[in-house]
């Protein structure tokens, strides 16, 4: 069981999809229920990973699976090579966690041809999980492309008015990047074979050991970086995002925001940066600048949006800017901040998209001016919305703060000082656009008669939101659950990239003079 846990987890949704194909298309309830069960089971299958302490002790790859797959006479070889470490662990968990929520959100939203929708969702899940756990570049590429197709259809078939344009834009943007990446992958392999380095397939761990010459790294990083930058998306390659988000159905937006965008950042951390460490310093100023510009730009543009969903989409650009800035800081805080911000963005922005979905289902519009005073009609909704809003703003005690703070601090300590200072102003803008939107949608009196008869959240909708809220506070209050398992992997990654990751000097509490007593009182059994 544990030997092929990853395979089981990755392909279980695919199996589910095959079964979905045999369910009659007019049995809507069964289709959705079955899909929900499949995603839940997938989540349960992935749970042992989250509880496994091995990640806290060792930074390497675990749960390895290795089989030879395609071997053309030693000339071309690729393997079925899976594994997970502290970096991909939480992204895998995020994926399996967000999928049941996404399925639940479709309950009322997707009416037409739900069979296709469910099948594509499950296919998408396999693609996402596969991409996170593959250790073979070629396999990664296959899964990477596998994600693209279902998403294209999800937007193109179940999307809004302008869906075809959005879907095609999404597809072409991403495909351009992927093709560049494919060329780069083939080149790396070709180079490895040419230089006589023993290469057994496209395994990235072996590629890590390659010593590519600088100029090769330069171009390869450019190719990989471009591809991932589109996916992140980094300024100025972000324009597919607002369109795709706005047109996609709620479940699509949630998955797009929560997982697909993370592919880009994950790609940087797992592939682009460690594979080409020599070229990395050359690009850091550029990439950090783009991240910071993305933060400010996304915030300013989000501020002026008239469509709630577009606003959230642009806020994603800003949030992902924090992630990238943290990652490029190349130190523990920044990396941890970036990684946790990935999770945060998945939770908070996913929740925001769900919220937008709730009001869209009720009113079939997303224009801010159509709303106002909803807090009167929907108090529970108002509370949940408020919490998520503040989590997105990055209020301390919620998840957003931990990520932003660490990313900024990491950038500041990591030589990106002025970038960090400028990026910190994003904290102000975040408050402006989110609160302004909240005010216009929720506060004031009900002016639009169409809003008079709005119903508050149903039990199902609350159930959809609750798990996300739990994580909003969990990550905000005790992020160590996540850091503990990330730290070894990040340390290893940073060492590999030739940077000193670990603490040079720890300031021990013992250095505090005896005059100041320090008392430790565990909260669990504190005595009065």
């Amino acid at each position, binding site marked *: 069981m544990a030997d092929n846990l990853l395979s089981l987890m990755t392909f279980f949704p695919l199996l589910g999809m095959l079964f979905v194909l045999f369910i009659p298309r007019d049995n809507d309830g069964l289709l959705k229920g079955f899909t929900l069960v499949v995603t839940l089971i997938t989540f349960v299958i992935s749970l042992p990973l989250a509880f496994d302490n091995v990640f806290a002790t060792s930074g390497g790859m675990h749960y390895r699976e290795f089989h030879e797959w395609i071997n053309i006479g030693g000339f071309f070889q690729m393997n079925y090579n899976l594994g997970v470490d502290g970096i991909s662990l939480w992204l895998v968990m995020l994926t399996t966690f967000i999928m049941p929520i996404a399925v639940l959100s479709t309950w009322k939203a997707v009416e037409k041809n739900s069979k296709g929708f469910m099948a594509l969702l499950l296919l998408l899940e396999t693609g996402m999980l596969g991409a996170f756990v593959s250790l073979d570049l070629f396999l990664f590429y296959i899964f990477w492309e596998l994600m693209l197709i279902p998403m294209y259809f999800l937007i193109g078939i179940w999307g809004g008015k302008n869906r075809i344009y959005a879907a095609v834009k999404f597809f072409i943007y991403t495909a351009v990047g992927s093709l560049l990446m494919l060329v780069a992958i083939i080149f790396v392999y070709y180079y490895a074979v040419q230089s006589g380095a023993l290469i057994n397939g496209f395994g990235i761990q072996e590629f890590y050991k390659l010593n590519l010459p600088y100029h090769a790294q330069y171009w390869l990083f450019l190719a990989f970086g471009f591809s991932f930058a589109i996916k992140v998306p980094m300024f100025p390659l972000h324009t597919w995002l607002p369109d795709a988000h706005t047109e996609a159905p709620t479940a699509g937006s949630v998955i797009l925001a929560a997982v697909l965008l993370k592919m880009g950042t994950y790609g940087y951390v797992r592939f682009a940066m460690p594979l080409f460490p020599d070229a990395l310093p050359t690009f850091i100023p550029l990439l950090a600048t783009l991240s910071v510009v993305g933060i400010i730009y996304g915030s300013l*543009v989000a501020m002026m949006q008239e469509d709630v969903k577009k606003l959230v989409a642009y806020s994603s650009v800003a949030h992902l800017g924090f992630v990238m800035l943290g990652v490029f800081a190349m*130190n523990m805080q920044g990396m941890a901040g970036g990684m946790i911000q990935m999770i945060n963005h998945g939770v908070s922005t996913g929740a925001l998209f769900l919220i937008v979905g709730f009001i869209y289902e009720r009113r079939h519009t997303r224009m801010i001016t159509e709303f106002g005073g909803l*807090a009167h009609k929907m108090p529970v909704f108002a509370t949940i919305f408020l919490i998520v809003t503040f989590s997105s703003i990055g209020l301390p005690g919620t998840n957003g703060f931990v990520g932003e*703070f660490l990313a900024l601090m990491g950038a500041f300590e990591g030589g990106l000082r002025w970038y960090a200072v400028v990026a910190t102003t994003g904290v102000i803008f975040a408050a402006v656009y989110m609160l302004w939107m909240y*005010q216009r949608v929720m506060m*004031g009196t009900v002016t639009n008669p169409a809003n008079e008869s709005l119903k508050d959240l149903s039990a199902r909708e609350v159930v959809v939101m609750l798990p996300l809220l739990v994580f909003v506070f969990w990550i905000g209050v005790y992020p160590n659950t996540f850091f503990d398992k990330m730290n070894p992997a990040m340390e290893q990654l940073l060492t590999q990239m030739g940077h000193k990751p670990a603490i040079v000097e720890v300031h021990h509490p013992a250095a505090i003079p005896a005059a*100041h007593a320090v008392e430790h*009182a*565990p909260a669990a059994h504190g005595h009065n």
Partner: protein
Amino acid sequence: MYSNLWLIPFFPLVGSIINGLLGKKIKNEKVIGGLATLMMFCSFLVACQNFFRLMGDSVKTHQVVIGSWMSVGNLQIDWGFLLDPLSAVMIMIVTGVGTLIHLYSIGYMHGEVGFYRFFSYLNLFACAMLMLVLGNNALVMFIGWEGVGLCSYLLIGYYFEKKSAGDAAKKAFVVNRVGDFGFLCGLFTLFWALGSKGVWTVNFVEITENAHLLQTGGLLVTVVTLCFFLGACGKSAQIPLYTWLPDAMEGPTPVSALIHAATMVTAGVYMIGRMNILFAMAPTTMMTVAIVGAATAFFAATIGLAQNDIKRVLAYSTVSQLGYMFLAMGVGAFSAGIFHLMTHAFFKACLFLGSGSVIHGMHHAYHHAHLHDDPQDMRNMGGLRKKMPITFITFLVSTIAISGIPLFSGFFSKDEILWWSFGSNRGHWLLWIIGAVAAGMTAFYMFRLVFMTFFGEQKTDARAKDHIPESPLTITIPLMILGLLAVIGGYIGIPAILGGSNRFEHWLEPVFGEALEMHHIAAHGAHATEYALMGISVAIAIIGIFVAWTMYIKNPELPAKFTAKFAGAYRLIFNKWFIDELYDFLFVNPCKRIGTFLWRGFDVKVVDGVVNGVAWVTKGIGAGLRYTQSGYLHNYAVAMVVGVVVIVGYYVFG
């Protein structure tokens, strides 16, 4: 020993959660309000216990660590609390005044739709504020720091159906965020500055111990402290970030009393006190703090002269008084600043609650007469002293206290600040003059307020006139307690020159002593000078009161003449120096314009233009090429033959 410290913020948190989740079901106002108040009171008891224990303890600094919050690389942040004389004073103020205001709110908020919501927020605020003052590291403090900002947002926006309330709430949060930007930058710089010396920490105790690693007066320390000062400006409504506080009066009055007078806005002062060692090392910053403080004290007082809304006057008065506290911090009078913080908490809370009592009465009367006049406009009041005797007396006592009349609490604290600003080696006589003039203006506008509200003819609409009642006990009891404190609160800090021993300063000695001693900050001067200055400031205050009396009691027509004569100046002051408009012009509108431009201009035109342009080019090429597909057989045949000819030609001649 002090391990139950965590209970202090924990009680209000529990209250907040219970009321927030179940309040709607409970419905009974007595249960909801009682629970919230009880939680605050429990917290007050624990605070008292710890306070007295600390009094008897020889070790004055205690840390209690509950657990780890974040541990990443060399950044280790704990959920930890710090009890020292400074935070002990603060928790006493917060829980004490907080309990009274909770009690008051039960009466004041009676019958409101969101009663449970109000108490949930109020308790949450108390929790955040206590986290702020108790945090043993900058991050836990920052939780409280932003937490109080959040609660302030929620409570200002309590009447969310009013657009002005929503606007004010948003403004408060955003302006606070500007301050938070400073706080974060300061924190990053500090962490990095100390880290490069080998001490990676955000813990206050460790910062204090290792501050000597940084160069006194150096650039780093100056930058760090200036950044933190920006944070303090945001939270404590100093120039240039004060504009949110007057607008914050959109919230219910108890909120104004608790958050926007007694506790939250003083967080900036507290933070500077907490980091006194760093500020002492940066004379430039100290000077900036003092100048900004003095300027704010003066500037806000001028605006206060002309306001007609009872709460707005108090709001500007608060800004002005906070200016005094910053002045104190800037000239090195740390303990005097905290002392004024405390006395101000008493008398300003009392003033706000008193004004709330008046508004409550007015509102009641208007409601009775079915009128929709503004219950907060002082021009509709007058002669209320007979209708609301308890409110009147407590209000008067507090007004005297804030005006700096001897024997009342405000006198001791304010006078000490003025003395330091003159006599300290970090002070300057100009600062004293500004401070003294501002004190005179304070006396003027405060008594103007009292005279317009409680004396003279009753100008209320005749239909509502006779229905103004004295407020219920839940409102008057807190008023009386606070009024009492406003009188006697100053006696714990009688300066040596008046025969006291200034026990307050001694109490805070462990916190501030080291910094003052190390950097030789002290107020020097002859006793005669000190007496003289004291006399002058008292005289100025009395002049202010006299002028107010002349203008509003003796010759009520004077103000009109006055404003007619100085119309330009009056308009300027009345419109708050047009600062809000200036900010709109400088920051808000450009941001909106840039945002719109980036979206419609850059995003849609440039980036999408390029993307769509590529698509158009592809499409165009395709459109051109498709004409080669004529559909005529011969064209294809010719193409094939040409191909064959070329290939054969290549073999023949190539």
